């Protein structure tokens, strides 16, 4: 995977911060994505470039089950989310829509907002600041969904 810039967030980052409730009933993800991370960094949607990374701490994506949260990140071109741990609904939603979510225990504390990093899903490693960090591999079942482009792509394949 190519190199990208890190946007770093705190522990217990809840999905309300990724996309606030007031935007969830907008007609589509395109209209919602310009409000991503509005409460914490209103410039995020204009600063983030395709291929960039979101890095969190423990329990990333806790709270509401709103699938709009991983969807706006994907729509803005976020390549993957790396965190020490993920809340389960966000984790599952991300895989279902084809957004890689990577558990990496050491990297989040070692990097700063704005640093560059790269990630190799096949090798299961992330690189930043000249160091290499190993990431937890996804269970095979989830890896398959992700590699097929998400759950609906898998379903279409099953029903082809």
């Amino acid at each position: 995977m190519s190199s990208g810039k890190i946007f770093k967030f705190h522990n217990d980052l809840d999905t309300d911060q990724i996309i606030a409730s007031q935007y969830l009933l907008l007609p589509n993800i395109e209209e919602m994505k310009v409000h991503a991370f509005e409460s914490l960094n209103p410039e995020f949607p204009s600063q983030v470039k395709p291929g960039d990374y979101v890095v969190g701490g423990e329990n990333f994506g806790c709270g509401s089950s709103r699938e709009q949260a991983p969807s706006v990140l994907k729509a803005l071109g976020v390549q993957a989310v790396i965190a020490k741990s993920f809340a389960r609904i966000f984790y599952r939603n991300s895989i279902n829509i084809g957004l890689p979510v990577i558990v990496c225990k050491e990297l989040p504390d070692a990097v700063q907002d704005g640093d560059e990093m790269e990630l190799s899903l096949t090798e299961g490693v992330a690189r930043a600041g000249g160091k290499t960090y190993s990431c937890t591999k996804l269970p095979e079942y989830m890896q398959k969904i992700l590699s097929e482009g998400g759950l609906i792509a898998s379903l279409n394949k099953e029903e082809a």
Partner: protein
Amino acid sequence: MGMTIAEKIIARAAGVDTVKAGDIHTVNLDRMMSNDGTTHLTVDMYHNKLNHPHIADTKKMVFIVDHNVPADNPKTAASQKKMRDFAREHNIDFWEGKGVCHQIMMEHYVCPGELIFGADSHTCTYGALGAFGTGVGCTDLLYGMVTGTSWVLVPETIKCNLTGRLPEGVYPRDLMLTIIGTIGANGANYQVMEFCGEGAKTLSVNDRMVLCNLSVEVGAKTAIFEADEIALEYLKARGREPKAVFRSDADASYVKEYTFDLSEIQPVAAKPDFVDAVVPAKEVCGVHIDEAFLGSCNNGRIDELRVGAAIVKGRKVSDHVRFLVVPASQEVYLQALEEGLIATFMESGAIVMNPNCSVCWGSCQGVIGENEVLISTGTRNFKGRAGHPSSKVYLGSAATVAASAVKGEICTADML
């Protein structure tokens, strides 16, 4: 090795004899619920992303408009219309404005032993009736709608022994907030909380809903009580039969055990902006408030309305406070009307609203402005959860919320 209630429900739904934590199984879903928070996106995906759009069994589906009802702007109205039209076209059970989705599900659908997916994180509420309810996103919901199935990673179970009885003036909400403060916002991630013990017998189905509902705030996949005589009585009164009544085996495996003595619980509050920032309510007394909210899928039932009404009866809401009272369903609303509670609230100066998610989710009538402070019986106190990003939310019991509405600052009921 024996199994827990949650494991037995998954085994039944997967059509296998045994399951164990860590296994992945394909399960037949007994029911699926979707609300206006995401259904417009599900409908779009149904039409635009599926090669072969169809619904496995429309009788398993329930659509509920509760988050922004009635619609407050044309875009919301359009999203809800998309949902409403789809439900009608496909003969899906459809509810609008009748109550918060989980309250509707408990009043009309949930049965012990069922495995239920809901496109809402608080679907874990259904464990109060011995069902396995869990929150999912709209893609999982769509997959379930099309195939009638889904994949489940069997979670580990945490045993929560409840002993004793809650003291006078202390409520299940104080208990659950205390549990959240104890085990932390990440304390049960991907696990099931099983509530058991003699203390559980002192809790009604409504009380159990309060506990199960907030289990997602510690990351739990769900929470569950055994469907005992209290649960079966609730079910019978509503003319429903259990799917299956399971008990955990004596040699079932638990990843962790906690014991909570109900008699030691005191009124507590969760401070902004994290649900596990739980402190004795006395520690936040004196905090100026602009709004108070009594409602939500956690705490908007008749029990909490009775508690709130008893406190405001003969008193006036502070003139700088907007006190929102939002019954969790029309059934609750009608009961409150019959008992005179609605009149009591109105006479005190409260604003009584139609059943909906209200300010608990921060995109409905009642949102708060810049730097404003809300004391709430809602589910969450995340940054900006109830409106402007600079606003603050404290969580407390119905008693603490009603007392604070009268005083104009956070206080416990015994301080009025």
